[in-house]
């Protein structure tokens, strides 16, 4: 690893650029605007609800950023969420005690799907865009096939605990949603692995220049498969939170993969690899959720939200490219 040309670069993506990652000022401005529009947002109920809502997307983006940094895409996250919610309802089958083994099974499914994605890319040499498009379609079909189109069970309260419950009597903030704790733990772990371990450096290296990384002795395939597995795991966790928050439905995950990619890119991750940061992806996810919240408060209809989302997406990347050109990186 020591020979890798990128090993010396700190893995914190945006932070290494001139000054601060623009996602943070953006987020701060959005939050200020929301508070100005609706002072209730500064109360615990306001911002905790906001964090609770942003948690699944933030976790997804933190996983997605591994794959993006390694040079690929994971389009299968959304349908993996659906599979997890539908599958959990099938497996628990109204038995509250089943949660204890169903959740590990779901996490294993997430890791497994990630491993399959990684294997298709590494060993069948199918580009990840197509590989994960294939898994996306397949997983959606599997979710329906498994349940026959109508999931059998309700999700028991023990399962829904993670996405729905609040922990009361917390000092300073009065209460904390369980999903926010999950968010902190998962994103914290993913950030640590990305920016403080050898794995993170290798993920950056294979995204930056796979040939050089291989020559430097990086086990390219193993690192790539790991990145996909972490992305799958994050989708499984997001699925458990979403199922907990809102219950069973057959289209929970639809569209989440693109939102996760958008969030990662807002956080300065570079598509096709080499640059990406977990904290910044978290910032991107929060900013995206804040944009939606703000547009909601402004009472703007759905179409306007789409236009704004599209423009912001293009602008964010164009701006990043401009900065990169200027700073010569």
């Amino acid at each position: 690893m020591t020979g890798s040309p990128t090993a010396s670069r700190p893995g914190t993506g945006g932070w290494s650029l001139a000054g601060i990652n623009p996602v943070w000022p953006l987020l701060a401005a959005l939050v200020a605007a929301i508070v100005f529009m609706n002072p209730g947002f500064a109360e615990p109920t306001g911002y905790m609800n906001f964090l609770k809502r942003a948690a699944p997307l933030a976790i997804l983006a933190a996983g997605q950023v591994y794959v993006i940094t390694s040079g690929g895409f994971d389009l299968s996250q959304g349908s993996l969420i659906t599979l997890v919610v539908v599958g959990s309802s099938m497996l628990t089958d109204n038995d509250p005690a089943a949660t204890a083994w169903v959740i590990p099974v779901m996490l294993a499914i997430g890791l497994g799907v990630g491993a399959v994605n990684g294997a298709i890319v590494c060993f069948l040499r199918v580009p990840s865009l197509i590989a994960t498009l294939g898994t996306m379609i397949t997983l959606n079909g599997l979710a329906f096939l498994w349940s026959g189109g109508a999931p059998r069970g309700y999700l028991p309260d023990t399962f829904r605990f993670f996405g729905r419950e609040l922990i009361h009597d917390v000092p300073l903030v009065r209460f904390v949603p369980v999903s926010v704790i999950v968010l902190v733990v998962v994103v914290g772990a993913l950030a640590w692995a990305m920016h403080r371990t050898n794995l993170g450096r290798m993920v950056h290296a294979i995204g930056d220049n796979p040939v050089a990384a291989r020559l430097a002795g990086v086990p390219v395939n193993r690192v790539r498969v790991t990145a996909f597995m972490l992305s799958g795991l994050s989708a499984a966790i997001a699925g458990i939170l979403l199922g907990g928050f809102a219950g069973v439905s057959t289209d929970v995950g639809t569209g989440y993969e693109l939102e996760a990619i958008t969030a990662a890119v807002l956080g300065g991750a570079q598509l096709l690899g080499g640059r990406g940061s977990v904290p910044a992806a978290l910032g991107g996810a929060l900013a995206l959720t804040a944009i939606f919240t703000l547009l909601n408060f402004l009472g703007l209809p759905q179409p306007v939200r789409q236009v704004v989302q599209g423009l912001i997406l293009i602008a964010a990347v164009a701006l990043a490219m401009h900065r990169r050109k200027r700073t010569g990186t």
Partner: protein
Amino acid sequence: MKLILSAAGALSLSLAPAQAQNFNDPEEFAKQQEQLQAQPNGPEGEPWLQYIGDGMVETGDLGIEAPATVCFSNAGVNNPWRVVGFTNMTEELANHQSIGEFIHVDAEGSDDKQIADIDDLLAGGNCDVMIVSPNTTAALTPAVEQACESMPVIVFDRGVNTDCPVTYVHPVGGYGFGIEGAEFIAGELDEGDNVLMLRILPGVDVLETRYSAGRRILDEAGLNVVGAEFTDGDNARTKSIVEDYLMRGDIDAVWMDAGATAVAAIEAFEDSGYEIPVFVGEDQQDFLRKWEEEGMTAIAPTYPTYQWRTAVIAAARVIEGEALPGPEWVLPQPAITEETLAEYVNPAMPPLHYAMCGCETMETYPEAWGGN
């Protein structure tokens, strides 16, 4: 970008006359309001065989030999309502000796694909009768007209803009659905009370009519509609929207144009620490169960899935040369009320099962519908 916006602006100017499709038709509103009250013809207790109005079509002898091949072009089974309906349909087939082969093609929610599917069936399906559940009314009209030229066609759920099919099977309709929920709310609330309206998405004919009818009645009753929001049929979004509204003020009733996300909306009240207000849901089991458990004040208008049975029955009658209600076979569209709730709620059935399926007496019930 500016160019696109201005192009879109120009488009909007030219659109005013084009938006002719009327989802707020007072005549249709009045007709469906009347049909809700009408006494249907046909056997008591078997609403899938009943019909409102007296129109019949004689099919005479079309020279179809039993057992005949029935082809079904399905818009999709992309939501639980259609899954339940399709199960009703396949189970109903067992009741008809005159139907031999049943060919099902699924368009997966795409107009283009459904037109191609019908082409395929006409080119090589050896169909004797065709059943079509159109993905959209306007787009499928030419394909249905083409099918009519070579065989009897039965249309159900959404209609087509042609009277060439033998009959068009459908329940009372969207206005009726909207009326039942809104009248219930109007009866429970006082003038000036706050109502939140939740809708799935704009533009879909059967949903727009529900909304326009519901809105008309709520407005006439002097209720204050605090908002009409689109949920995309997504549980998480529904819950978030209701939570946001609760942060801004009280809600005395929730009207929904479809009940799929009703439980998520109820949970938003529970999780935010509010009493559950008056609710309009639909006949999905999860809502009915919640209603019973919490002792809510609620109603469940239905868009009965038993119409999928009726479509098969109509096909069988055509094969056998019998008369059948037509050119429209209008089925009754009962709402589930507090009095009838106990008949429909069934914990053995899956949460997304639609209770008004008319399937309880069928042999394979409840296993075929995913029940225990």
